[in-house]
């Protein structure tokens, strides 16, 4: 009999097994769906849209020539290099400011107005003023990535270090901890899951905003190439870049999840 719980909610895995072993419906379904999506895309573009529009077969064919070009690798190095550099700077600064805000409430009151206002602001709205100040330069991209990472990391670190259970602090006091021990020995490790979540969010925003700056400020990089290749009616090559960006974004996301499990195994969410 079909119960309600089999209609909605977590299904017992056994229900979905055909036979047994590796090939289950859950494993086959995404492959079938992916194949259907690709075929529909391919057929739709071939029958309804002009020739230059990207389609799966065209993208697959464009991969070797795109990856072989020196331009591709210089774009990848420029964009991903700026993102990684920006994340490093932004998260280091964010952790320092966040711990100070979390542990000293006067600092929190002093800074929170600006941090929260900037955190609420879609950072893409900051791109024009940054371009105006920094110029149409790669540095504008770095500045925006740093800000995109700094804000979420500062906010999550402050939240994480503020809410430390009193037991830890008492134990620390008993063992004669000094301020820096409190901050970096107790507060920071117990805020690890928050900090990693902040960096993860910052990474996602940093990637998006880096691309936005490249296009608005005409800075060479992957985002710029996505748009120029498309304007040259070479959409397939443009989509190869998008594919690389997607792989990078998905990779970073899963890396961060592993990171959190590794750094904070006690934290389940």
């Amino acid at each position, binding site marked *: 009999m079909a119960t*309600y719980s089999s209609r909605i909610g977590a299904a017992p895995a056994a229900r979905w097994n055909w036979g047994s072993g590796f090939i289950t419906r859950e494993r086959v379904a995404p492959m079938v769906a992916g194949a259907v999506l690709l075929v529909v895309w391919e057929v739709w573009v071939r029958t309804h849209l002009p020739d230059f529009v990207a389609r799966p077969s065209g993208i697959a064919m464009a991969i070797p020539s795109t990856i072989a070009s020196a331009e591709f690798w210089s774009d990848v190095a420029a964009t991903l290099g700026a993102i990684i550099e920006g994340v490093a700077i932004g998260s280091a600064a964010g952790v320092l400011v966040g711990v100070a805000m979390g542990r000293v409430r*006067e600092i929190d*009151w*002093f800074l929170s107005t*600006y941090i929260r206002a900037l955190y609420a602001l879609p950072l893409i709205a900051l791109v024009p003023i940054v371009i105006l100040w920094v110029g149409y330069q790669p540095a504008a991209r770095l500045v925006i990535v740093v800000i995109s990472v700094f804000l979420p990391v500062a906010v999550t670190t402050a939240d994480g270090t503020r809410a430390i259970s009193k037991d830890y602090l008492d134990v620390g006091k008993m063992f*004669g901890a000094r301020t820096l021990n409190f901050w970096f020995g107790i507060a920071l490790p117990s805020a690890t899951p928050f900090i990693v979540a902040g960096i993860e969010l910052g990474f996602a925003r940093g990637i998006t905003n880096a*691309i936005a700056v490249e296009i608005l400020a005409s800075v060479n990089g992957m985002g710029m190439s996505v748009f120029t290749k498309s304007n040259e009616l070479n959409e397939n090559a443009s989509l190869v870049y*998008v594919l690389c960006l*997607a792989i990078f974004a998905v990779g970073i996301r899963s890396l961060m999840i592993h990171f959190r499990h590794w750094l904070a195994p006690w934290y389940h969410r």
Partner: protein
Amino acid sequence: MAAVRRIDSFESRLARFRIVNAWWIRLACYALSIVLLLGTWQALGHSFGVLFVPFTTTMGRLWDMLQSGPLLPGLAVSAKLYGVTLVINIVVGVVVGLLLARIKLIAAAFEPYIYILYATPTISLVPFVSVMFGFDFGSRVLVSVLISIFPILIGVTEGARSIPRQHLDVAAIFGSSESQLWRDVIVPYVTPYAMSGIKQSIALSMVGTLVAEFFLNPDGLAAVLLQGTTIVDSGWVLAVTIFICAIAVGLVGVGELIERYLVRWRHTAVG
């Protein structure tokens, strides 16, 4: 002697210095930070000239632009896109989210692609969208929705999946029909998840609106911002940025009100 060294950390000294519930210290911190920032801005503005106009000039520009400038017409254009985006996010996000929880084979089939689409920077899809659908309002809505729908969609799916079996089995034992099941069990259980998704989407829809306006033939507030960059007028750009920031803070505030209401509701629901 080291063993009896007095433990006197910065934090404990600070704690002794603090007066319990000193609301005026808090107020003083806020006031000091605002005065310092505005003072620095004003001073820097006077020494930097064209690239960084003083605070008072910026406020004057903002006032002028509100009175007769492009700000309010731009806001009207952006608000329309924002409203349409948010409504589509809520309707489509909730419906598709419930379907994904309800029809498990479809969920298993499409979930990986939904997550990949979520992780992909949507900006990079803009050229593709414009080739397929043009530069009109419809493609702006599409880009904006792609940026901001996922918190609702994923939240509703996970909420519906986490309904405890007992709830569903109790409903089954009491012989509730499909419509009763939805009304009495599923909808009340999923509502908090949907609301926290909506809270995030309220803020994200603004990001989506601005991105769509920046990259699909500039329009609305984004166009007003870019206009200032082309004529290298920092007063203009600063004024518009502050205006957008004020709207964003307001929207985040609305989201937090929803969440506060929600938290109370959740407590009463748990009992």
